């Protein structure tokens, strides 16, 4: 990796105006965080949330549709898995390189890459969830006169929710981590302050932005757990006898 990580020969960093802590580039300077929250950190955090939400939402819609198609037509499985697995194995920086000539240094480039990485996990989990419905439940549904569509929406999808939510949790957390790399393409997200700080080896900014990314991942995961519990009360109860 060149650029931000290449520190070259030792230079005397110029951290400009600031407290002694900042000027001396100590490990963590609370005053810098206070001064730069509104101007740097908060916008970066919100951009990061937005990048993640869009990527996971689009990825989910595509994977969900693909999983429904596969559930109906088994033959579609191999091409879908092959495509999403190939995308998944491309290193993110290489994928950006591939996309920039097409979509430029834009949010689109970033989102296409981020969406690409969510496909495999979301597709697999949705499909596994749909396929995990017990055969006796399906037979009862058929025997009672539910149509194929009613069986899908009233029985199979609700029962697939735990698997789908498990996929969403992995997709969200990994997208939050991956979205820091977006700073190589666009000045957005928590990756951007890290990118800038790396140039000057400014410790506080690297630590705070990194911590925000980790915190965001934990909070998002926690919210998804809460959402899953709310959506699947039936799976929370344990056998009473």
């Amino acid at each position, binding site marked *: 990796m060149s650029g931000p990580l290449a520190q070259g020969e030792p230079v005397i960093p110029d951290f400009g105006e600031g407290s002694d802590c900042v000027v001396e580039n100590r490990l963590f300077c609370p005053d810098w965080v206070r001064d730069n929250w509104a101007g740097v950190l908060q916008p970066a955090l919100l951009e990061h949330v937005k990048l993640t939400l869009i990527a996971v939402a689009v990825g989910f819609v595509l994977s969900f549709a693909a999983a429904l198609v596969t559930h109906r037509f088994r033959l579609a499985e191999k091409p879908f898995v092959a495509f999403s697995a190939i995308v998944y194995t491309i290193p993110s920086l290489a994928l950006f390189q591939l996309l920039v000539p097409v979509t430029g240094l834009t949010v689109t480039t970033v989102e296409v890459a981020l969406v690409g990485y969510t496909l495999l996990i979301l597709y697999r989990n949705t499909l596994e969830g749909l396929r995990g419905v017990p055969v006796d439940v399906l037979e009862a549904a058929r025997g009672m006169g539910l149509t194929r569509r009613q069986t899908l929406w009233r*029985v199979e999808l609700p029962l697939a929710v735990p698997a789908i939510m498990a996929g969403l949790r992995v997709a969200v957390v990994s997208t939050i981590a991956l979205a820091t790399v977006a700073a190589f393409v666009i000045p957005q997200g928590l990756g951007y302050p890290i990118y800038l700080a790396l140039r000057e080896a400014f410790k506080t900014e690297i630590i705070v932005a990194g911590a925000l990314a980790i915190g965001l991942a934990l909070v998002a995961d926690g919210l998804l757990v809460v959402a899953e519990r709310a959506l699947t009360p039936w799976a929370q109860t344990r056998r009473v006898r």
Partner: protein
Amino acid sequence: MSGEAAEIAFDRVTKRYPGRAEPAVRELTLTVPAGELCCLVGPSGAGKTTAMKMVNRLIDITEGDITIGGTSVRTLDVTALRRGIGYVIQQVGLFPHMSVADNVATVPRLLGWPKARIASQVDELLHLVDLPPDDYRARFPSQLSGGERQRVGLARALGANPPVMLMDEPFGALDPITRARLQHELLRIQHELRKTIVFVTHDIDEAILLGDRIAILREGGILAQYDTPEALLARPADDFVARFLGTDRGLKLLSLRRLDEVELAPLDGVAAPSADGSTTLRDALSLMITARSRSLVVVGSDGDPRGVVTLDTLAGLAG
């Protein structure tokens, strides 16, 4: 199709699976009169489940026809047909993500019943299967025992008051005590509701207990005999049926009747053990053997002796 029980008639029904030389069901003809419970029994491979599933067209009929209340199942819309037939399977197949009430309400909802009617129907059915609605309505299937699940399965099948029920070894996965309890519950419910029921089982004792009529199928889906339990036990059509009924079929026959139902000899003053009129003949025989007596005094519910039953009487009954 709802409410009043309807006759189910199989008319030379054959099921062939592609790639198999022998049919699974061969020219099956039998009529289940409205309001009766017909048990289909036979060894595995005798096509009993196949025969049952052709009624609600979970399996397509190859040749012949099945009519319900005179209407061919082939002419009806398949979803409408199935919604009009209660369906109970061994593994129950409750929807794990729905409460007991929502499970029972499945078919009424599909049929678009008004909410209030659905709610009262659910409560009524839960009462019927002896699950107090206030206790059970909101539970999920994972919070029920095996016996309770099958009770809910039965209530769900009765959801929209279907005239016809199909039951595929519904009690096969239950422990013997729960199984016996549910068998008697089914008899009580059937006595009250009088549905036309096709009941598949491989357990001949269950068939004798529950069936108004029993159809014994043999390998290859051939009907060996179709009769009332009494007639089957007294006069099996051939060796296969006799073997299937078991060497204790005489005792099974005796267990179907009670002392009240036989003609008693006058009291002769001989000292003999006594038994109540509601005792089965099988238990009466057992009493005679354990008491080393060739006769038994039958007493009424008031304890007064009514008459005498002898070993000879019992031995002559099968004729």
